[in-house]
């Protein structure tokens, strides 16, 4: 080891050489650039949506926006048709995913032994990784004939209910993982206090853990709704894609997302009558605003859980 004469050491020799500091500054600004890029992306998304959507909003005859059916190539842009379609699919999806997802979450967080958990959690993550086109095909060729057509004769193979169940399956892992996180962040002291009072496991889970984690559970629900509204491929493949207004989930229909995909895939270019092209952006903007609001609200709820524990 070389010894350093303390008397010869000055502040300058601790400062590091200029080359290293220059490199440090360069690296820092590169990383800052990478982080700032996300803001540029957001700005580009909003810009590209609004530019064409404004043309639609200023030029469209508003009677055609509240007419009968979504047929952009014929100049009929009935927003309520696709909005109701999205709503039906979302409600069905939540009816499927909320009980199964939250039930799985409570089981994993409160009941499953660590070894069982270690096996089950990765399986849930595998389910989360299945691409939505696959669930679309599954909804069309399995869920529809095996579940829906069997119980309701004369239903077409492609219908909103099948798509809704498909979207529901897609959101089960999402709900399960957010809910489980919320319940596991409830401190054990609360559970022990409950057991100490002589409460049973079911009482502890239902009356102590779930109320303590309720913000997280609500957040899970909202994120899942946002995801279900934004889901495109399952609906595009399994819902039938006719723009006739319907409130009956057993009939084929259209959602906001599927309307966009259908329009874009109709010809290899997004092109058509007068405002057909711009209507795509208008629906996109609507979808963006709805999901953004839902995500912001969900974020609030998640934060509340984090702050409390």
């Amino acid at each position, binding site marked *: 080891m070389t010894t350093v004469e303390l008397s010869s050491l000055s502040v300058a020799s*601790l400062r*590091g050489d200029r080359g*290293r500091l220059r*490199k440090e500054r360069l690296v*820092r600004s590169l*990383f*800052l650039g*990478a*982080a700032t*890029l996300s*803001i540029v*992306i*957001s700005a*580009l*998304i909003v810009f*590209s949506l609004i*530019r*064409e959507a404004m043309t639609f909003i200023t030029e469209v005859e508003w009677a055609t926006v509240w007419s009968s059916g979504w047929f952009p190539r014929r100049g009929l842009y009935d927003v309520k048709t696709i909005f109701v379609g999205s709503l039906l699919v979302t409600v069905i999806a939540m009816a499927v995913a909320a009980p*199964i997802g*939250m*039930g*799985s979450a409570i*089981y994993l967080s409160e*009941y499953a032994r660590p070894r069982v958990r270690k096996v089950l959690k*990765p*399986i849930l993550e*595998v*389910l989360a*990784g*299945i*691409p939505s*086109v*696959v669930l*679309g*095909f*599954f909804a069309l*060729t*399995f869920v529809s004939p095996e579940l829906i057509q069997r119980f309701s004769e004369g239903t077409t193979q492609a219908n909103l209910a099948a798509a809704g169940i498909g979207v529901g399956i897609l959101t*089960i*892992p999402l709900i399960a993982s957010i809910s489980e996180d919320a319940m596991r962040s409830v401190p054990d002291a609360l559970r022990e206090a409950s057991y100490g009072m002589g409460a*049973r496991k*079911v009482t502890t889970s239902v009356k102590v853990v779930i109320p303590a984690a309720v913000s997280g559970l609500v957040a899970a629900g909202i994120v899942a709704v*946002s*995801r279900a*509204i934004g889901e*495109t*491929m399952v609906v*595009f493949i399994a819902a039938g894609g006719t723009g006739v207004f319907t409130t009956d989930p057993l009939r084929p229909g259209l959602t906001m997302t599927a309307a966009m*995909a259908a329009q*874009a*895939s109709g010809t*290899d*270019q*997004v092109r058509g009558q007068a405002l057909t092209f711009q209507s795509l952006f208008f629906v996109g903007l609507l*979808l963006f605003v709805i*999901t*953004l609001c*839902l*995500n912001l609200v969900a*974020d609030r709820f998640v934060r509340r859980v984090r702050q409390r524990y």
Partner: protein
Amino acid sequence: MSVLAPAAPAPQTADAVRRRLTSGRADVAGVVFRSILGLAIVLTLAILIVLITDVVTGGWTVLSSRLGDFLTGELALSAERSGVYQGLIGSLYIGIFVVVLAFPIGIGAAIYLEEYAPKSRFTRVIDINIRNLAGVPSVVYGILGFAIFVKSLSSLSGGATPIAAGVTLAILVLPIVIITSAEAIRAVPDSIREAGFGVGATRWEVVRSHVLPYAAPGILTGTVLSLARALGEAAPLILIGAVTGRLGTFGGPVTEQLQEKFTAMPIVITAWAGRPNADFQALTAAAIVILLAVVLLFNTGAILLRNRYERRR
């Protein structure tokens, strides 16, 4: 002091407690609740098993009789001659763009947010912005890709080409890469950083030699999961203009291939799923098996890797 001594329980309370503890009455509500929860988890597993068996049996005839042809054949009008080669190539290009663009930018942004960023309003804005970007529906990213990369920058991308698709999907998974990498970096104990600073390293030297190696398994898991997500995504590609007819030949040099019309595995699946013909249903199932094999291989690999390293620490 006698005030603080617990009062002796009334004899009937003690009796009630004793009866309660020794009666051995079945916990009906508990059993019912537990079985409902068990049913939920069994249903989840059943769905996964049914889904995988359904596509494997559906695609089995194609996969077992002509797997080689199916992988190397091009899209055709007749089901017997159709293959997924063009879809595989398109997905490969998309995967490369994601690896080259989203991974370094995403990890860089995560390093900035966790290691460099001051606690300022600007940092908070970036943070919130990234979380919101992660929640934007994929079809909206398709609009971004169409308006910016296909139309506005068509001189660079050449229109609806693998370039436009790759860049769009890289942007789509960027927030996921940032969020998962930031989590992995946050989990690195401060003592490791302090050891580096203690011997006079600059921040970047600490990050490169101490933080990144420690966080590598977590970062790798997040990036692989996001790659799998990009390979399975179809909605943005439809908006950008992926096609299933009149494709490029993918025969020429790579620079030319990147300027051609393209398709990708999820797009091929979507197009085939729309045909009622039973032969094409079998083809769809076979293509799904191929896509699932790739995506699930990536996913399980990443998850196993993370679990292994988590256990070690």
